């Protein structure tokens, strides 16, 4: 049974990685298990300067999921390079840096600054954060803007660039084609869906930002559908799939839809040991469904006509 996956810039022991924003910079979860077990780690988004984030409450529980509006709180890219990433050097696990910004210039600045770091293997270009006033999801919903920012970041960065797509669009393949056409090395999908929850007693949205990004098993069928559509349209683009993964069966479903590797997000909050547990279960699940490797399962959920 082979769990290894090779993608641009990423040689993975297995296809499981914690998703950006759900794992901080690794320190906290390293108390629960050896991070060497992970295929890769996608760390929390970096912006040009430190960001405070949104007012609280920032999270709310929903049926089979949660809403969050953290607002990209982070110490800024320079502090992340000097204070956060060095801790992860002790692990033989590739690090993917997630970058965000309000303007194309900010994205480019963050990407250029990250060239100074030897601690990362790839960049996840976050054009899909629904929780910040400027930028964020705007870049992820307008194909022209998405193309522009991808093109500029590709030019600025020494690392492979995976563009994280927003599901808050009518046609996901248009967005995927736009960023791949602009040079993206791969895709990461999906980010959260914009949602809202209203408190009956207070007659007001639960989350201070009013809207938040919906994640967890509630969005898994949407992620599967979107990855399936993008895989139909772009047969070779590397895809890191995410959206509500809770167990190894879910991972196989993402592989069948066309993902090459997957990220686990919200499930970390419910079970801090979820990633190693899924990694341990995965060989058994693959073999139960007739696969001898992770790579063999990729895209096998597509019905071939004729």
């Amino acid at each position: 049974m082979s769990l290894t996956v090779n993608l641009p810039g990423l040689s993975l022991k297995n296809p499981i990685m914690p998703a950006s924003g759900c794992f901080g910079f690794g320190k906290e979860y390293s108390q629960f298990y050896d991070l060497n077990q992970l295929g890769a780690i996608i760390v929390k988004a970096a912006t040009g300067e430190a960001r405070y984030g949104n007012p609280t409450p920032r999270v709310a529980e929903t049926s089979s999921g949660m809403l969050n509006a953290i607002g990209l709180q982070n110490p800024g890219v320079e502090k992340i390079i000097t204070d956060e990433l060095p801790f992860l050097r002790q692990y033989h696990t590739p690090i993917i840096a997630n970058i965000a910004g309000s303007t194309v210039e900010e994205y480019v600045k963050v990407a250029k600054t990250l060239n100074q770091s030897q601690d990362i293997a790839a960049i996840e270009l976050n054009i899909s954060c629904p929780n910040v006033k400027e930028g964020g999801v705007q870049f992820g919903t307008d194909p022209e803007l998405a193309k522009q920012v991808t093109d500029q970041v590709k030019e600025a960065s020494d690392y492979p660039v995976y563009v994280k797509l927003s599901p808050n669009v009518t046609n996901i393949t248009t967005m995927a084609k736009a960023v791949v056409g602009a040079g993206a090395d791969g895709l990461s999908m999906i980010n959260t869906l914009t949602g809202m929850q209203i408190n009956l007693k207070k007659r007001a949205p639960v989350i201070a930002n009013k809207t938040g990004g919906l994640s967890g098993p509630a969005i898994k069928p949407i992620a599967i559908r979107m990855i399936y559509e993008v895989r139909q349209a772009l047969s070779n683009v590397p895809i890191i799939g995410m959206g509500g993964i809770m167990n190894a069966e879910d991972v196989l479903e993402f592989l069948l839809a066309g993902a090459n590797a997957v990220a686990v997000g919200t499930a970390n909050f419910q079970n801090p040991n979820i990633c190693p547990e899924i990694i341990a279960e995965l060989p058994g699940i693959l073999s139960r469904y007739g696969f001898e490797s992770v790579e063999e399962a990729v895209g096998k959920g597509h019905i071939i006509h004729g």
Partner: protein
Amino acid sequence: MITKQSLEILSHIQIAEETFEVVLRSALSKELKPGQFVHIALPGHMLRRPVSIANVDPEAETFTMIFKIFGEGTRHLSKYQAGDKLDVILPCGTHYPIENLKLEHALLVGGGIGVPPLYYLGKQLKDKGVKVTSVLGFQSASQVFYEEKFQQLGDTFIATNDGSYGQKGFVTDIISELGSPFDYYFSCGPTPMLKAVTDQLADKKGYISLEERMGCGVGTCYACVVPLKADPTKNKKICKDGPVFLANEVSLA
């Protein structure tokens, strides 16, 4: 060392209106310090629920937690019984750093479901030979709990909002009458109460413990933050940097 454990419930009883006391067995009990909390998973709920530690029996390797029904998750937790297992992350957060403090007389100020962590704190203070005075606030008589236990630690005063038990009014009314013969105060309760108490006792040294909706409970998700008083453009994580803070460290809305 923080860890996730499956813990057996030894007892699960109602002690006041919608308020429950649960005793759990864990070898980690003796490491739990006053002010820390545990983070509990409930089947069918995406997020865990933080519950503060009310007491520890290190010899028996058990600890006690007290919670009140606030929503679906805590209602679910109220249905558990002795013998059931709970999925718990522990220990979480910071504690009241009494090992570093020199004090002779402590004032404990608790409101509602903020009362429990002060009991374990008060017990440890009393063991150190510190005089303990407790001021506890509840909405009404039906919600009062642990009065006798606090009386065993020292003078205890109860306020209820509706006057149905103890003195009618707020904890701050009782504090005004007591004056301030204590060296430190320790407070836990709803944010408006903490704000009133820290304003009233602005010239005294004290520690407070905060509550907030949490995501991960271990410091990765940045859901439960509170702005710093000295620099409101910066914040601290309640689950990891707190829940215990110096009284003047954070800005209470």
